[in-house]
């Protein structure tokens, strides 16, 4: 299936808005997750204090990341794991492939992990003729459908029950059913067979504990525990920002993450994995590989504003709260990280030029910042990225139409900067606008603009497609002030 890219965000979004099935699926988001989250955080005495505490831990980690990473690597290796470092996605994929090939393994299971989506690990494995199986129900659904996740926590949220049933009929060969239990059982039956013969399990991790070299992974289905304990070899791919200094730091994050993500007080499973099994009779892998991935993260670390992007614990609360995400879903962002945090992270991961629409895909309403468990100021980050984009585009016209549009915009803003920064010029501009509006206004408002007018004044065309526009008042406030209001 052809993947949408961030570069065509506007087109992707328009297509999404016209997708009635998607809207039906997204309706659940705000209603279900928003309400469940509110109820779950009400069970905590000092939610604000937890948020502040969590952010303080993250800030400390990000300021001393090199030290904590070394500490983590030393302790993980002491417990028997092998730690690898990957500069980018390609390096990380090569490391995984190398481990797989050396062991001559063909049966690979995967558990849900955003970072392996980020580096397109499945594609890299498939290109080598391997057949990794996703074992999270949502991830398995989108793997069957040959799609990408549309949400950080609930990857198949864009699909309705009916669509999933049809998919199972087509790909797994079951009889058509709308019984959710039956659909879940189908997945369980199929996946258990794969688990039984698996040689390598690949996972991500929610947190890496520096003082013990442990990984903490949260889940509800139990498949992650199987993925990380059943096969002889476990490979964990994790971003370098996942570090927390101490085991006790997990306390605050365990309170924040499930409540923010799924509105649960705690997930059904919490696995702390420390190195390999110590005795032959123990359960667990004989080999553990931890691949620590940079892939643009140290770039974010360099600036005090962008650094906070790395505090994200991937709970997905900002997606659920975002009015834009609620309208268009995740795929339109053209990135494995959609929604507000995706609009911030994606341009920093793949480059501003490839995702320059994303920082603008927000009304800056601040709902994301309000729900973020680690207090990331997403609007501040969006504004920061917008400023970077605008500076870079001030150079002039290019053949690329999107840049040309940008040129028109930058001209408009320079004009606005000139006209509106002087009172006389401002008044003159407003007189001109009043003259112009006599041509287009009817009965005190401007209705849907025709093609010619829309081409001449694109923002007016965009505004009036679905909304009437107001007209400038006969007398401005300043005129009324002068004409008697001042002395009234």
């Amino acid at each position: 299936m052809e993947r949408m890219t961030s570069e065509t965000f506007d087109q992707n979004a328009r297509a999404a808005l016209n997708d009635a099935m998607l809207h039906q699926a997204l309706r659940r988001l705000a209603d279900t997750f928003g309400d469940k989250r509110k109820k779950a955080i009400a069970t905590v005495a000092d939610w604000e204090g937890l948020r502040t505490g969590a952010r303080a831990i993250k800030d400390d980690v990000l300021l001393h990341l090199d030290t904590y990473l070394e500490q983590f690597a030393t302790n993980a290796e002491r417990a028997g794991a092998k730690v690898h470092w990957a500069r980018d996605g390609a390096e990380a994929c090569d490391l995984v492939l190398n481990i797989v090939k050396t062991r001559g393994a063909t049966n690979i299971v995967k558990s849900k992990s955003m970072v392996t989506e980020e580096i397109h690990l499945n594609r890299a494995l498939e290109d080598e003729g391997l057949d990794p199986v996703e074992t999270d129900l949502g991830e398995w659904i989108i793997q069957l459908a040959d799609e990408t996740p549309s949400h950080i926590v609930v990857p198949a949220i864009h699909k309705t029950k009916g669509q999933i049933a049809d998919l199972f009929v087509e790909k797994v060969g079951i009889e058509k059913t709308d019984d959710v239990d039956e659909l879940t059982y189908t997945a369980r039956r199929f996946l258990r067979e794969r688990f039984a013969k698996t040689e390598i399990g690949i996972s991500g991790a929610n947190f890496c504990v520096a003082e013990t070299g442990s990984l903490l992974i949260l889940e509800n289905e139990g498949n992650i525990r199987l993925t990380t304990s059943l096969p002889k070899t476990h490979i964990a791919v994790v971003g370098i920002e996942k570090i927390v200094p101490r085991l006790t730091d997990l306390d605050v994050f365990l309170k924040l993450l499930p409540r923010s993500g799924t509105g649960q007080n705690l997930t059904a499973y919490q696995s702390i994995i420390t190195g390999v099994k110590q005795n032959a009779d123990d359960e667990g892998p004989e080999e553990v590989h931890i691949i620590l991935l940079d892939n643009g993260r140290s770039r974010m670390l360099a600036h005090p504003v962008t650094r906070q992007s790395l505090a994200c614990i991937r709970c997905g609360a900002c997606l659920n709260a975002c009015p834009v995400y609620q309208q268009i879903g995740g795929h339109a962002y053209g990135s494995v990280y959609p929604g507000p945090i995706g609009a911030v992270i994606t341009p920093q991961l793949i480059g501003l030029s490839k995702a320059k629409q994303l920082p603008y895909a927000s009304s800056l309403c601040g709902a994301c910042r309000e729900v973020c468990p680690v207090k990331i100021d997403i609007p501040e980050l969006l504004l920061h990225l917008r400023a970077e984009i605008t500076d870079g585009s001030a150079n002039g016209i290019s053949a690329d139409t999107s840049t040309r549009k940008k040129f028109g915009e930058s001209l408009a803003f320079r004009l606005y900067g000139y006209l509106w920064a002087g009172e006389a010029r401002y008044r003159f501009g407003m007189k001109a606008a009043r003259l112009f509006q006599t041509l287009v206004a009817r009965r005190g408002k401007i209705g849907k603009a025709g093609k010619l007018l829309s081409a001449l004044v694109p923002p007016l065309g965009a505004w009036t497609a679905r909304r009437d526009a107001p007209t400038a008042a006969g007398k401005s406030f300043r005129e009324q002030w002068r004409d008697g209001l001042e002395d009234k």
Partner: protein
Amino acid sequence: MKVSLFVTCLVDQLFPTVGVSMVEVLRRVGCEVVFDERQTCCGQPAFNTGYRHEAQKFAKRFIEIFEDSDAEAIVAPSGSCTAMVKHFHELFPDDKTWRERADKIAAKTYELAGFLVNVLNKVDVGASASGRFTWHDACHGLRELGLRNEPRLLLKNVKELEFIEMSNADVCCGFGGTFSVKYPEISAGILDNKIEAIEKANIDAVVSGDASCLMQIGGRLSRLGLKTKTMHLAEVLALQQ
């Protein structure tokens, strides 16, 4: 108290009645009102679109103009423009002097509802208006300035007025400045949810603290031919029916 009006360009040109109403309300509660005609725009459109150079020009101009006044407070009929003034200092990352001047101005700049309730301790401004009214939280007033109860208190203290809380009052209307014309379809999609909530609430007027939200909501109500009015908080508080 002497108050300097920061009327905002949107109110000045498109919704002057909001400014006139604000003057009336402020005078009614005993304020002396001054207005510096040199003021134009706070530069928010430039700042929010990423044009920091232009935004800085507007910020400097704004600071210089309002520094000239001996008014104790600067009051605006907009949470969004007030929030912009609070952001001014970010435009001078390498200039301590300007940052301090920006902070000084920001410290005495208030949105109307916040000023009336938190500075003057007034929840009853002597207004009366009959009908069913609801409040739409403009995002910046709510989430940048933290004004949730203040406007509701003011509305509930208007005589005869029946206050109705609509569902999702604190969800964005989809305006978002240039967002509304950069992604008009998404903006209108978000707006339709707001219109749905307004219709369900079955009210005479939807009230807000930002003219921009009212322009967005009103523009759709007008296109759909719906009778619900849009009113700025200042306009409601000025009513004495």
